[in-house]
């Protein structure tokens, strides 16, 4: 299958979209950018390919009757088993790296005890891993660092205590290792992992076991055929802040303005105005009926009113980023926050707290401040025309969306506002479409050259 990849290297996350020749999205992948765009690109691309394999399995199983109504359940289990394979592989890498740290001279006096402790920590982590990826498991994040890190910290504290070792020592070893592991290009062999995951669900050549062993023949044929489909990556286009760090030639790079404009158009063809609030920039974009950019404006010399603003506020409030919106939405009397400057807003926040204002009211005010700033950028780009599409990570924040709806109505009247559930992939989607067009036109040129030669 000929595929086309779009990669959006954002300041916070890196997204990849895989598209087929018929403009259908067949896979999406996301990872944290971690200031290493090379690795982030590989991880996000690999995630998109995993997603594509899952989708192909889905299609193949649908064609053979969908496992008698148990299709979704099976796919959930298959992905869980696959993620477990992946997790255990990275866990092994982390263990090796931690042991490598112990070779340092400063650990000489405690080396043997630390080795024993580490072996115990990783044995426990491996033991509890299946539960992390089993049915109904709740994970706050899918990133290895978050899943493994959280558990390592908890388990090593107990192990250190039992072994009479310093907890800080085990922490130190972990801190030094995790960045290295995170930045290591991901291991390949996706199909191998899928096949091992499949064996866990239907049994292997040694016999039938696992939750779907009774469906073994149908599943093995369908999934096997799906996994045999080669994803032939024809063309890749990169966009976003990190694009300059990649060894892409010019024809493989597009500005995020163009990609967001086209991506929004593809999701909602009636789009005329796009607002994208990313990690460190906010863009107001006007597009025509074909998704071609007519005009754009971006935040100027500072990142006030960008996604990072909310991240900073979350840190100040000792809350998770995803908890801000739900708390702010509870507000019935938002506090007026004047500062769009992130740092000043932090000071204003503390001032308001000391005056006894409610946290949800202050947060609602902060959400309004960020959207007010975005409104100024949109108006500079030419205002809002019907339809209006809101993209970027902040589009997932319901309190920000509520303020946006209010302000759009106040300033521009009744306008259709599109917020796509996959809006975080808008830039990558536009990039994938650019890749598809470039790939198709290259193929056309080759074909023409063939005719003429």
């Amino acid at each position, binding site marked *: 299958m000929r595929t086309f990849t779009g990669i959006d290297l954002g300041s916070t996350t890196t997204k990849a979209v895989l598209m087929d020749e018929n403009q259908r*999205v067949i896979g999406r992948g996301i990872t944290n950018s971690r200031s290493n765009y090379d690795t982030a690109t590989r991880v996000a691309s690999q995630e998109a390919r995993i997603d594509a394999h899952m989708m192909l399995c889905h299609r193949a199983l649908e064609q053979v009757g969908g496992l008698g109504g148990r299709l979704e359940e099976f796919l959930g289990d298959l992905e869980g088993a696959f993620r477990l394979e992946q997790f255990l592989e990275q866990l092994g890498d982390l263990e090796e790296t931690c042991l490598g740290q112990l070779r340092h001279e400063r650990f000489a006096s405690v080396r043997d005890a630390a080795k024993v402790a580490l072996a115990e920590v990783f044995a426990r982590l491996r033991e509890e891993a299946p539960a992390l990826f089993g049915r109904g498991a709740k994970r706050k994040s899918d990133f290895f660092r978050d899943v493994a890190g959280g558990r390592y910290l908890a388990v090593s504290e107990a192990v250190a205590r039992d072994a009479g070792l310093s907890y800080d020592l085990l922490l130190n070893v972990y801190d030094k290792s995790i960045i290295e592991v995170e930045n290591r290009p991901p291991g390949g062999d996706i199909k191998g992992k899928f096949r091992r995951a499949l064996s866990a669900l239907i049994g292997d050549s040694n016999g039938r076991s696992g939750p779907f062993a009774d469906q073994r023949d149908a599943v093995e044929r369908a999934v096997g055929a799906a996994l045999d489909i080669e994803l032939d990556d024809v063309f890749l286009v990169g966009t976003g802040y990190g694009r300059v760090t990649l060894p892409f030639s010019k024809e493989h790079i597009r*500005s995020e303005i163009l990609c967001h404009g086209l991506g929004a158009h593809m999701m909602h063809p009636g789009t005329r105005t796009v607002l994208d609030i990313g990690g460190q920039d906010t863009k107001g974009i006007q597009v025509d009926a074909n998704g*071609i950019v007519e005009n754009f404006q971006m935040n100027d*010399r500072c990142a006030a009113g960008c996604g990072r603003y909310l991240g900073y506020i979350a840190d100040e409030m000792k809350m998770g980023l995803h908890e801000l919106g739900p708390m702010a939405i509870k507000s019935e009397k938002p506090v007026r926050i004047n500062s769009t400057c992130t740092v000043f807003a932090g000071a204003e926040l503390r001032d308001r707290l000391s005056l006894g204002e409610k946290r949800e009211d202050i947060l609602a005010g902060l959400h309004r401040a960020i959207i007010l700033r975005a409104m100024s950028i949109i108006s500079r780009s*030419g205002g809002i025309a019907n339809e209006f599409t809101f993209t970027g990570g902040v589009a997932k924040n319901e309190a920000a969306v509520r303020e946006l709806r209010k302000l759009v109505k106040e300033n521009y009247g009744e306008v259709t506002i599109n917020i796509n559930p*996959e809006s975080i992939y808008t830039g990558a989607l536009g990039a994938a479409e650019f890749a598809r*067009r470039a790939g198709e036109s290259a193929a056309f040129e080759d074909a023409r050259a063939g005719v003429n030669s």
Partner: protein
Amino acid sequence: MTQPPKASAKQKDVSKDSSMLKQKEMIAGHYRRLSTAGEDGRKVAATFVPGNLNELIMCFDLLNNLPEVNAIQSGLRKESGRYVMEAEKLGHSEDVCTYVKNDLGMIARGNVGPYGLQLPDPDVLLLSYTGCFTFMKWFELLREQYDCETIMMHTPYTGDGKITQNMRDYMVKQLKEEVIPKLERVSGVKFDIDRLREYLKESARAEDDLVWVLQSAKNKPSPIDAYFGGIYYIGPIFGAFRGTKEATEYYGALRAEVQDRLDAHQGPVTPDGEMDGEKYRLVVEGPPNYTSFRDFWKMFYEEGAVVVASSYTKVGGVYDFGFRHDPDNPLETLADYCLGVYTNRSLPQRVEMLASYVNDYQADGLLVNSIKSCNSFSAGQLLIMREVEKRTGKPAAFIESDLVDPRYFSPANIKNRLESYFQMIEQKRAGKHVEAGHVEAGAAA
């Protein structure tokens, strides 16, 4: 198409054409004259680029020292940052024009100017363009500093878009009753109107050639860059050389050089060598950034973008719509010159001018570089941009930087916007709008 020049990893020596080298010599010579003014018994006038009455100043044997030009030179030499900080230490706020802060900071540090040469104290301050309120405040501060004769000639703003006889008479009256008598008193030289006429003749000759050079950008490919390169071209005529034989010779030589480039179908000369493969033709509104001038320019020529017309190269005089200094009406022509400088024009006039540039120079669009600390230029630029877009149907873009404060040039952001803009032009120009499909949300399982 030939690829635009690639950036080398390490900046090599700057390529310059022979006119640039000559211009550099002229400017260096002028700074040498300024540095020895005291020893030579020469008196010095300070004035500004917009409304620079260089011919009149020369009539009194005064040397012309332009603080804006000093600030530009400091910016290009990466010296302005410390001067700006120095002025802030003295109490000047962050939002004050950075030309002003460069000048005041430089004075505070001993007034050693570009080329490491001592700058003289002015004997007279001559303000002949009052559209910029900051200019007046700047000279008030210099008057405080030097306690010297100060001449403030009021130039009415052309709000209705035209110069009236009333305005002209009003300014001539000021010249006769205020400016000339004061300059006579300061210099000890009697005013000779025939001497002024002679200088004005030279001015008109140089202006003819300058206009020819700037309009050569109507050709494809353009042999010049009318913004980054244009700044070198306007140097002598906007500074201390308008009305001199030296300027006439320089512009004659420049014209011949550009003619040769035109005959050879060559593109502009850039700091990294000759530029081939003109890909985008732009009109630019607003001054450039001087502290990162070379890097800024590079962002253009690396992408194959040539500026074919700019408003900044009209800030010291608008000549391409027919105005020339007229020796037959010496004082009226000085009035017309002051009244007609770019920033003394109303917004509708500026829109008209930029739209005509986009059309006449077959540009792909308008780019605005909005300067943080220059209200004189920046006020109304978004409106100007939209109006020019509407009239020409060509895309426009907006970037932001500053004159000579290095803290306000964010290369990553500016490059990002410029690349987006160039790609936007490319996308619109392609013409064959591929109908993009509609992707169902959640099309992927």
